[in-house]
């Protein structure tokens, strides 16, 4: 099939300034048990292609699942038509854009080979953890799931570009809800939105700690039910990796996406407090803050070899010693910024969720680099504060500044010691100052690889996979609060 598609494409692509074909095939399957009842098995096979044409200053695309010669020809004609319509009215003259013609192959961990996917054995495992949640009659809801994702991508360009990439991901998840006296508390393994999403094979189940999680998570849900609300006040916050992932995502990742800075998202996802003139000198965070775009961390959810405009993916520092160095912008955004007078080096993060959406700037693997303090040292350095674990709520303004986040689990810290559990821990702040309050960064021993399959952005809308690895971190003078009394 690939050969026939490639042949069809080569026949079409000679007629325009630039043409690409991005083929995506995504297979997924999800096993789930809820309240100890197996849920319907759902599978998905999604295969299609996007033809992109750049010609005469315009840009157009057409996406189709009809991969016959006639189907691809029709898509090509449609993409040409949109390039023609947009040429006279475009926000950018695409004649000045030079897109690469890469060749190569990228294989993610465990992507090549049969998966150890014995459904009956896996359902037995899920049922075992599900039954383990049933420790108390106040546990009123519980669920365990396991998702598998296999992706094949092929990128062809009119000047001989040919890139093949394959990925596999395993996504375990578990949560339990406790209810009593009008209050409901949910605790989970890595978050209720699949925080333990990684590339690789079944070794991820052990990495995530799925076996044995049922009893622990249910017990913690009960502890939360019985706990007091998180106190209100200004104090230190020790954020664990399963909350750091959200903090990084919302108040570093999104504000630094270059297409947002250029105004593309102002009708929907918003703009940014960051402006193009800040790069190279703006103090984004304390000197302890080092943030990287890191596609080389292969087990992280958004590791890849090339982005969806064919740029090769290489690790780069976005923030180094607190100073903002470069935006998260792909080839097109870099060209647009240069046209506006800002020569900014970006990263290879022009990405689409699948074949049926066009690429735009999307954060990929975005990580805080580890520091040098153990978890015990981080806790020991706090006179009064709260440890917060596992994101449950997130909200931020359209310039990515005023935020409010909440976690499932809190623990008081007093005079360098962990104390009692508190529920509904939350905090609010302003991105532009929050990262400057970073006062301690955990070492590699506190680091964890998290992510989310559900980063939403773009018009039309699209959800992409992102990865966020981070150590535990301490922030000072944070406005902390709890739930309704």
């Amino acid at each position: 099939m690939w050969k026939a598609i490639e042949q069809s494409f080569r026949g079409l692509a000679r007629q325009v300034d630039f043409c690409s074909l991005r083929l995506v095939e995504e297979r997924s399957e999800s096993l789930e048990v809820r309240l100890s009842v197996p849920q319907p098995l759902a599978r998905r096979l999604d295969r299609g292609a996007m033809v992109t044409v750049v010609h005469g200053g315009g840009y157009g695309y057409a996406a189709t699942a009809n991969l016959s010669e006639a189907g691809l020809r029709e898509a090509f004609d449609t993409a040409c038509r949109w390039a023609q319509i947009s040429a006279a009215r475009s926000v950018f003259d695409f004649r000045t854009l030079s897109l690469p013609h890469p060749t190569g192959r990228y294989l993610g961990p465990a992507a090549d080979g049969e998966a150890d996917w014995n459904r009956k054995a896996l359902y037995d495992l899920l049922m075992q953890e599900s039954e383990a949640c049933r420790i108390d009659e106040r546990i009123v809801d519980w669920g365990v799931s396991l998702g598998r994702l296999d992706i094949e991508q092929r990128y062809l360009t009119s000047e001989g570009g040919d890139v093949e990439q394959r990925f596999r991901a395993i996504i375990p998840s578990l949560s339990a809800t406790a209810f009593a006296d009008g209050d409901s508390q949910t605790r989970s393994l890595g978050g209720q939105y699949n925080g333990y999403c990684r590339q690789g094979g079944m070794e991820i189940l052990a990495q995530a700690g799925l076996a044995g999680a049922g009893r622990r998570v249910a017990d913690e849900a009960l502890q939360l039910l019985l706990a007091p609300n998180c106190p209100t006040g200004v104090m230190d916050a020790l954020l664990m990796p399963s909350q750091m992932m959200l903090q990084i995502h919302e108040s570093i990742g999104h504000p630094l996406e270059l297409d947002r800075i250029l105004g593309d998202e102002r009708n929907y996802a918003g703009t940014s407090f960051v402006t193009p003139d800040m790069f190279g000198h703006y103090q984004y965070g304390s000197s302890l803050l080092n943030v990287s775009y890191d596609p080389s961390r292969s087990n992280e959810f958004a590791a890849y070899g090339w982005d969806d405009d064919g740029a090769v993916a290489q690790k780069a520092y976005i923030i180094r010693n607190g100073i903002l160095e470069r935006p998260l912008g792909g080839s097109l955004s870099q060209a647009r910024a240069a046209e506006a007078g800002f020569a900014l080096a970006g990263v290879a993060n022009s990405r689409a969720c699948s074949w049926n959406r066009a690429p735009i700037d999307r954060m990929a693997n975005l990580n805080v680099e580890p520091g040098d303090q153990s978890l015990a040292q981080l806790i020991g350095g706090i006179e009064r504060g709260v440890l917060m674990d596992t994101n449950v709520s997130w909200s931020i303004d359209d310039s990515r500044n005023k935020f409010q986040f909440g976690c499932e689990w809190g623990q008081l810290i007093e005079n360098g010691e962990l104390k009692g559990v508190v529920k509904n821990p939350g905090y609010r702040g302003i991105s532009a100052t929050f990262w400057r309050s970073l006062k301690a960064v955990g070492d590699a021993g506190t680091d964890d690889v998290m992510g989310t399959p559900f980063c939403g952005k773009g018009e039309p809308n699209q959800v992409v996979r992102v990865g966020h690895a981070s150590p535990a971190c301490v922030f000072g003078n944070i406005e902390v609060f709890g739930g309704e009394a």
Partner: protein
Amino acid sequence: MMQHADLREHFHRLADSVHAALHAGEGFTLWLAAETSDFVRFNHGKVRQAGQVRQCYITLRLLRGQRHLSETVSLGCGADDAATVLRTLAQLRTLLDDVAEDPHLLLADAVHTTLHAAPSKLPDAGQMTADIVDAAAGCDLVGILASGPVCHGFANHHGQRNWHDTSSWNFDWSVYSHGDKAVKRGGAGFEWQPASLATAIAEARSQLALLGRPARSLAPGGYRAYFTPAALGEIVGMLNWGGFSEKQLRTKRSALLRLAEGEASLDARIALHEDTLHGLAPGFQPEGFIKPERVDLITDGRLSGSLISPRTAKEYGLKANSGSEAPESLVMAGGELPMAEALSALGTGLYVSNLWYLNYSDRAAARMTGMTRFACFWVENGEIVAPLNVMRFDDSLYRMLGSELEALTRETEFLADAGSYGARSSSSQRLPGALLRDFRLVL
């Protein structure tokens, strides 16, 4: 290439081929979701990214007794589709023994065939693009135009056939003054009227002068506030997160927990219902049931119903009235306040045109946080004085639509969802505006 209009016959042929290939004791359901959408994205009043997406997904469910499983497959709408569907059927058959019997399986067995197919009245999307660029000339317009046919279909082994096919446009946009100061608008329909578009853009531009005034930042605290229907839509939209789901109510995960337990109530003027009859979504759902025309959800400020999927209905011995247990056509009854008098009734306080990025700060207590956005103003004695710098609120549903609700507008507005995650949304709301005595800002 198959035209969209021929898709229904193609779908029926696929269903017939599945039926013919069944083994003894087997059954099937087949769900189709397809669209051919032109998407044109605008920035600075010009085209940022434009193209077309032609997609067609079928979800084939194979069942044998209480065992069943499904697969969703993309189709090219060509000669290969029959082979693809039959290959999928054969594959599902090999996996049936891997799944347990499902005690909560409930599928329609009475046949209710329906057809709703409206011919397209849309012009070429290139012309629509030109109309927008012309009307936006000289202004910083940002937005997204989506247009084209969207269809859904259902078939099963009982011979039921359902089809819903409409061609619509949705243009969601804003015009910017400077920074984050903008007027947000949107519209949708089955016919395109360039003159109406030009009028709407001109009207929005006329408000930019107000946004150009020096902006005001407010101290955290309580304020009188008027929510436009769009702003109220964000509050009510949070209830789509399992709020009315019978399953979430039963498992104590619904944000309406206290309402359900009788520990709290909303203002007695609050009445919400799911209005499938007047909404944009199809009237049938993936198990083959026909959704009722109306489901009352909140009456006189109290929970009076819920959305019940067939699985939940089977589990708890109820009657199904929904597909996914999330509202698709939510309607709130209007009140007594004429919308034209909203500012004078507000007196001094906030005019909240839009809210943004809401989430629960305490779900069990229905407490929400979010931001003001777009053309929100500080009002004194019924007159707009200054645009507001964005503010964060953190407040409870039981206060906003309960103890602190002063009035609802008489008029309601129809809001078609512009969302397109995976596919173009068919959801909608019809809502009034709301006047609040006290609205809590925190940052």
